[in-house]
Every structure is written in C-alpha cells, then in structure tokens.
C-alpha cells in the first residue's frame, strides 16, 4: 500500500467509527461532537485526493459553522441534553436503509470505475478553482448570491416573528413571549 492508501484507511476508519458513534450515541451533544470528527475526516479525505480548497471549505463551513448551528438549535429546541435521552424506535429500519444505500453505492462505484486503470491525481490548486468558478460558472456564482439574499431575508423572517408591522422602533414591538421555562416547569 502506498502512503496515500494508508492515510486514507486511517482517516476512513476514524471517520467511520465516529459516524457510527454519532448515530448510536444517546447524548445529542456527544452526537454533534462526533459529527465534527466525521466531517473533519471527510475534509481530510479531500486533502488526500488533492482537493485542497474543498477540504478547507469543508472545515470552514461544515465543521466551523453548520455544527455550531446544529448545537444552537439543540439548545433552542430544548432537546433534552443528558444521558439516556436519545432513542429511536425505528433504528432497525434505519440500519437496513443505511446498509442498502452502502451496498448500492459500493456496487455503483465498483461497476463504473472498478475495471478502469488507476486515476492519476492532479493537484487542484485554489487558483484553478478560482479561475474555473469565476470564468465558467459566472452565472451560477451570481445565483448563489441571490440564494444567500433569500436566506438572509428568511433569517429576518424567522428571527423577527414577533413584530408583524415591520416597525423596528417603539417599546412595545414585541408581544410578550412565553418563556418555555415558565410554562413547562413541573
């Protein structure tokens, strides 16, 4: 095995184990932290196949931002944080579906690329990514900004659910919110 293959095996084992731990962990926060490891390992795989820019996107967006959002949403939804709180009755079915997807993808990749000659890696530099992105994909790139725009408006809509008239001044713009801690305390 080459160095690259050994590295890949190590990364894949770490990522796979933490992925399994993520779905089997009963503590949601632990699950989220296992997700961090899995996502970081995916980033490492990108590095192994010489997709440097993608690896850093993976780390910055997924590890850096998405997981943080996930943790915030856990705290927001009052998901019980602690031991023995997470369980799903349909885990058998889920495992079956997961195995099916795995088998399907393994077959697919083996069938399509199995017999072909080994692929030589070309280092994709960030500059090449930039040139491709900003020359060939001009229009999709600008559409992304529209998507971000819509997402920001959406953030405003979700965040400011309590001011209907769109007025942002005045002391009584918020309807009295019932705090969950008051309503659900035993």
């Amino acid at each position, binding site marked *: 095995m080459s160095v690259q293959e050994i590295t890949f095996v190590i990364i894949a084992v770490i990522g796979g184990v933490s992925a399994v731990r993520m779905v089997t962990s009963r503590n949601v926060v632990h699950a989220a932290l296992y997700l961090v490891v899995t996502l970081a390992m995916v980033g490492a795989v990108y590095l192994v196949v010489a997709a440097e820019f993608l690896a850093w996107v993976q780390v*910055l967006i997924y590890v850096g931002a998405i997981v943080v*959002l996930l943790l915030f*949403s856990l705290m*927001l939804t009052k998901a019980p944080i602690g031991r023995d709180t997470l369980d799903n009755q349909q885990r058998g079915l889920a495992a079956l579906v997961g195995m099916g997807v795995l088998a399907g993808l393994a077959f697919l990749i083996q069938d399509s690329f199995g017999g072909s000659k080994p692929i030589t890696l070309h280092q994709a530099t960030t*500059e090449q990514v930039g040139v491709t992105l900003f020359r060939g994909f001009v229009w999709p*790139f*600008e559409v992304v900004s529209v998507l*971000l725009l819509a997402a920001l408006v959406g*953030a*405003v809509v979700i965040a400011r659910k309590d001011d209907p008239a769109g007025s942002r001044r005045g002391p009584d713009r918020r309807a009295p919110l019932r705090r969950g801690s008051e309503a659900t305390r035993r």
Partner: protein
Amino acid sequence: MTTGYVPILILAAMAGAFAVLSLAASALLRPKHPLPAKSAPYECGIEPIRLPQSERFPVKFYVVAMLFIIFDIETIFLFPWAVAFRSLGLFGLVEMIVFIGLVFVAYVYVWQKGGLEWEKPEQARRELSARFVPLPPSVERSPGDRITREPAAVESGAG
C-alpha cells in the same frame, strides 16, 4: 497528496500528544478523593439552585449563527477569487462586486430590520426577572441531580 501539510500534521500530532500526556500525567500523579461535591456544577462558590435542564436559549443566538453561516459562505467565495485575482482581471472584480453588492444589500436590510440588535436593556431586565424565579419547595429534584452539597462532605473535601 500534498506534502505541504506535513508540518501541520506534525503540529497536530504534537498538540494531541501534549493533551494526552498532560491528562495521563495528572491522572497518575494526583491524589484520589472522589466526592459528590466535586462533581457538582460550580457556580461562583454559590450553591447552585437549579440545573440548566429546563432552560431554553434565546432565539437570538440562533439568528447570529444563521447570519454567520451566510457570511461565512460569502467569505469562502472570496478566497479562490483573491488567489486567482490577477488572472481574472477586471471581469472578476466586477463579478465579485456584484456578488458582494447583493449580499451587502441583505446586510443593510438585516441591520435596518433590527436583526443585529441584541435586545433593549429594559426588555432584558424584564425577561431576566421573569426567568429567574426561585424553585418552589414542592419541586422535586431528580435523584441524579446531585446538586446539594452535603455539609460533611464539603468539610472533609477541603483537603
């Protein structure tokens, strides 16, 4: 595989080894006196009156996280653009100005709509007083809570 990452790899290995070694060393060297008080949550020396179990975080945190992701993605696009800036020329600049302009409009909008305001002081005080009501005596704590310090344990745990 890029060989430029070897120093980073070595650094990461050193950082990991340091953490593991410190923990291992302290586990081996420290005296062992396990007490319930030691595993109680620490609240500036005051006895904790309640666990954060039933507390819900304000939605504002979430909004900040959402805004962060959006601008994070914007920054990601800046990175390859900056690297390839010279070969892209004026056209690339115009492209990026349009992109940033659109997101900037969104930023102004969020700002104007008060999405970046945390909360007003009087409102914060109101919410705070509404939130921190002492637990009524009837409220039972679950056995696993272990938040009360037994006086005896505290005394003997001083060593």
